[in-house]
């Protein structure tokens, strides 16, 4: 088929369709959003399957699991921290297995370009004891996705595809292959899918027995490649995923090519690792993410007579994204000559709220209402409004994970913070705030929760929000917030005085209040949702 220029995310989406995908679910999150966006952009007849934004990653996972139970091929995609939210169904799906191929795409963000941490999803695959693919490039992302669906059905487990930012968000040419048709409807066996202890124990034993097959499949995989240099027993390099590219980039500058092992599948191919380590004195392990393979190599006692280099030894940085320059220095090569630009540092240009953003007006009004209340604290959440932590607003004091604002304000209030304030967006509220608000409503906690309803998932590019408009107000009332303490404001400069007054009234209320600030995001208003 015709070559296409695609983002890594798009290569995965296209491959999923070509694998006979019947359903795809996701919640927006950088760097994974473009997978589902690609599917949604395709004309319906080309897509030929369900593709939908879910309320959160857990619901997305379970929706995909339901489709897999029905014998259809399903994909669920999310950013790395989204898998924390979906961890419950994820871990258990390793036991239910997959009737139709089930692909879990976890897009990690090493270096935290747009995330709260840089956790490495390969550990989740290991934790659940499932098979994981990690591409080093776009064609591999396509090919691995195709193989992952087959593996899922062959081994009766969900399969993970682990991406990292530089694959997800880099563009390159992909040559697609002939598509496969979708699976017919075929329900899973209740004995496998009903995880009563007796069934779960049996299924776990099956999963454990299967580990040998998974290891064998990994060792035989064409995505792993061992090249021993018979005339050089000094250095060997193990590189996983995208780190492989950075090693390749630097090879032509070396006098002698080290022995090389490229890893693209997990469980890590043990026999290939042994053969490399046996052949050399020193092993450099280059991994984008945490030192998973390096740690496995070191074990508790290390490898006698061998030196292991990597993120743990300090040859590579302990955290953050790798670059070709890091690998260069770990290979003891001199840095490339570069133009000397002189004086540093330059003024930083951090991201900021767009001009005219409704959040600015809400946070300004909140700042003013709190000015004469020194004991206050504003717990916030994940979204554009997190940028309100930075000058000039300096309006929020926490951002931890999706939905944490309301629950943390609840706990903070219990601990004596007055006023205890939560600030959360409509989509984040739908994702993980509703249960927190239900809990606060049952306790009638003395706190004030702001829900910033801009009608979209703005930070990730304006995707569909599930808890916006009149429906949002019904949810708030439905969880038990007293109607007289649900206040709606329109965050605009012209309403500033009035908004400050309303906020003060609710801060004074000794119990739970919710203030809904309603105004469309100016950047993604009706543009996308048409």
């Amino acid at each position, binding site marked *: 088929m015709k*070559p296409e*220029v695609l*983002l890594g995310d798009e290569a995965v989406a296209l491959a999923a369709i070509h694998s006979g995908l019947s359903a795809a679910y996701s919640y927006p999150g*950088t*760097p994974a*959003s*473009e997978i589902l966006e690609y599917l949604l952009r395709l004309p319906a007849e080309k897509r030929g399957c369900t593709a939908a934004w879910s309320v959160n990653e857990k619901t997305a996972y379970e929706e995909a699991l339901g489709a897999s139970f029905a014998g259809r091929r399903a994909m669920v995609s999310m950013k790395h921290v989204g898998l924390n939210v979906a961890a419950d169904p994820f871990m258990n799906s390793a036991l239910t297995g997959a009737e139709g191929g089930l692909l879990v795409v976890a897009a990690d963000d090493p270096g935290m*370009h*747009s995330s709260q941490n840089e956790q490495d999803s390969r550990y989740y695959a290991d934790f659940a004891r499932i098979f994981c693919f990690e591409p080093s490039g776009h064609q591999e992302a396509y090919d691995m996705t195709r193989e992952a669906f087959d593996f899922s059905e062959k081994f009766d487990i969900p399969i993970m595809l682990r991406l990292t930012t*530089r*694959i997800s*968000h*880099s*563009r*390159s*040419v992909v040559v697609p292959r002939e598509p496969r048709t979708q699976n017919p409807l075929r329900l899973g066996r209740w004995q496998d899918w009903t995880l009563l202890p007796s069934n779960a124990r049996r299924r776990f034993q099956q999963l454990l027995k299967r580990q040998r097959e998974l290891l064998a499949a990994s060792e035989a995989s064409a995505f792993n490649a061992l090249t021993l240099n018979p005339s050089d027993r000094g250095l060997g390099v193990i590189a996983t995923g*995208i780190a492989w*590219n*950075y090693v*390749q*980039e630097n090879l*032509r*500058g070396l006098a002698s090519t080290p022995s090389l092992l490229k890893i693209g599948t997990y469980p890590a191919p043990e026999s290939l690792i042994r053969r490399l380590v046996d052949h050399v004195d020193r092993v450099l392990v280059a991994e984008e993410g945490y030192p998973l393979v390096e740690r496995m190599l070191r074990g508790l006692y290390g490898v006698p007579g061998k030196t292991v280099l990597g993120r743990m030894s300090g040859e590579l940085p302990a955290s953050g994204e790798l*670059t*070709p*320059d890091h690998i*260069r220095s770990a290979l003891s090569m001199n*840095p*490339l*000559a*570069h*133009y*000397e*630009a*002189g004086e540093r540092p*330059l*003024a*930083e*240009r*951090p*991201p*900021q*709220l*767009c001009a005219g953003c409704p959040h600015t007006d809400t946070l300004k009004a909140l700042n003013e209402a709190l000015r004469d209340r020194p004991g206050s604290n504003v717990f916030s959440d994940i979204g*554009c409004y997190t*940028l309100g932590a930075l*000058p000039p607003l300096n309006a929020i004091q926490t951002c931890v994970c999706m939905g944490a604002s309301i629950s943390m304000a609840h706990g903070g209030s219990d601990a004596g913070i007055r006023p205890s304030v939560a600030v959360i967006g409509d989509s984040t509220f739908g994702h993980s705030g509703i249960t927190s608000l239900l809990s606060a409503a049952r306790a009638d906690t003395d706190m004030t929760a702001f829900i910033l309803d801009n009608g979209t998932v703005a*930070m*990730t*590019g304006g995707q569909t929000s599930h808890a916006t408009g009149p429906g949002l107000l019904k949810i708030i009332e439905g969880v038990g917030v007293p109607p007289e303490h649900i206040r709606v404001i329109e965050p605009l400069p012209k309403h500033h005085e009035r908004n400050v007054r309303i906020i003060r009234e609710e801060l004074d209320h000794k119990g739970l209040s919710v203030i809904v600030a309603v105004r469309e995001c100016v950047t993604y208003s009706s543009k996308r949702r048409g």
Partner: protein
Amino acid sequence: MEGRSADKQDIILAGVGGQGILSIAYVIDRAALDEGLHLRQAEVHGMAQRGGAVQSHLRLSSGTIFSDLIPRGGADMILSVEPLEALRYLDSLAPTGVVVSSSTPYRNIADYPDLGNVLERLRRVPRHVIADSEKLAKEAGSSRAQNIVMLGAASPFLILKEDSLLRHIENLFKPRGANLVDINIKALRLGRAAAGV
């Protein structure tokens, strides 16, 4: 020296979120594909797109490209729609590389440095093109066409034909109206003339 040849070009695109550097990348990518080159292009999405510093590494080659990221000292060109952002990545430039930058500042930070000094430091690079993208874009018909003005200013140095660029500018803007196509083609031409090559 590690094989820098005429059929390879590593470019760092820079600007501020919202200035349209990904449109520049789109045009170069498609033109490169037409001309049978390999390409890799690393973009920045997500939070940085909210008015922050954004950059994209764009690598073109007739041979295999391994890394998505350009090593420090490996960039043959810095192409920036904003002068402070050009300065930010100068360290990545090969000693023989060219910097192509707009002289129009985007002042959305309180501590924006002295513009004269920024431009002076860019002019110190032996090979440089500094173009008044705002003025030229307005002349072309829209101040939003500054990205394509800068693509034009870079075009004499690219290993791509001007025709390929023009074709994909047309493809990119056609869905948004014939008027925008004309404006951006004019923007490319004005930028190219400003390079004075």
